[in-house]
């Protein structure tokens, strides 16, 4: 069974070594097409002008922000339910990536917002939900750092991730409700630009590019984590042998 085969870290490592170069090529290629489409082909939005081009970075990162938590959640199940050895590694490797993409989503959202609403930050429903998601990523990262033993850390992080996965829709709902409760003086909406194919196609290509980027980075980070654990094991053996 291929999944069980992958359970062997050494076999996983050799798989990554073989696949990674191709992934890098694919990522670069799709980014090249995507950036060309986004910057040179896509037309300006009739409302937002050229600033709609920021959306080609902002939206894919929003997708990745949520996708990474899904990846972490599946890994968390792997850790808690099936004890799959690579699940810990997958979860730990995904966390900083998720945090980085969420951060990028917030930052580009802020830069998009400044020309749109005149402020770098507004407490609107969607941005605020992403901010809370960012804080939760940081919390998971803090947990990984604080618990020393790797397998204990993995189980703690897994529990937090799953609790987060259940909570995030609830948080999203609450934040949206809160945002509508307090109608600000000027109604600020992250107006979705008129989506037609000339904007949708570059967006989807950039989305694919970022997804490939995540896949590449995730596998590379998992490889690093496996190597890091090997180092730890060897060091422990060294200490025990009194070398």
């Amino acid at each position, binding site marked *: 069974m291929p999944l069980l085969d992958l359970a062997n870290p*050494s076999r996983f490592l050799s798989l990554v070594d073989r696949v990674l170069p191709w992934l890098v090529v694919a990522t670069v290629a799709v980014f090249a097409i995507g950036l060309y489409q986004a*910057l*040179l082909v896509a037309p*300006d939005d009739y409302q937002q*002008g*050229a*600033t709609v*081009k*920021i959306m080609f*970075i*902002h939206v894919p*990162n929003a997708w990745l922000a949520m996708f990474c938590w899904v990846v972490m959640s599946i890994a968390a199940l792997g850790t808690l339910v099936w004890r799959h050895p690579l699940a810990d590694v997958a979860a730990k490797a995904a966390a*900083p*990536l998720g945090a*980085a993409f969420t*951060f*990028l989503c917030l*930052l*580009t959202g802020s*830069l*998009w917002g*400044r*020309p749109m609403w005149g402020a770098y930050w507004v407490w609107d429903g969607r941005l605020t939900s992403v901010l809370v998601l960012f804080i939760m990523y940081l919390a998971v990262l803090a947990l990984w750092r604080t618990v020393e033993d790797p397998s204990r850390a993995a189980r703690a992080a897994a529990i937090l991730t799953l609790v987060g996965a259940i909570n995030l829709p609830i948080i999203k709902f609450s934040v949206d409700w809160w945002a509508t409760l307090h109608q600000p003086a000027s109604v600020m909406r992250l107006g979705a630009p008129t989506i037609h194919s000339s904007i949708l196609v570059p967006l989807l290509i950039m989305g694919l590019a970022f997804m490939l*980027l995540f896949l590449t*980075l995730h596998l*590379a*980070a998992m*490889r*690093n984590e496996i*190597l*890091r654990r*090997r*180092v730890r*094991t*060897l*060091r422990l*053996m*060294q200490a025990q*042998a009194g*070398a």
Partner: protein
Amino acid sequence: MHLGPYAGFIIAAYAVALAVVAGLIGWIIADHRAQMRTLHDLETRGISRRSSTREVA
């Protein structure tokens, strides 16, 4: 490529994205090198895992 009156924000957004992605790539590559170096280090000192065939010195 006409970026309009808010060109600065558009450029800033793409630049920041590039910086963050470059940072992630750089971190992962540096981490990889550090781990490989440490593993090589430990191996030349004769410490190895059970599954490898070298004998512990």
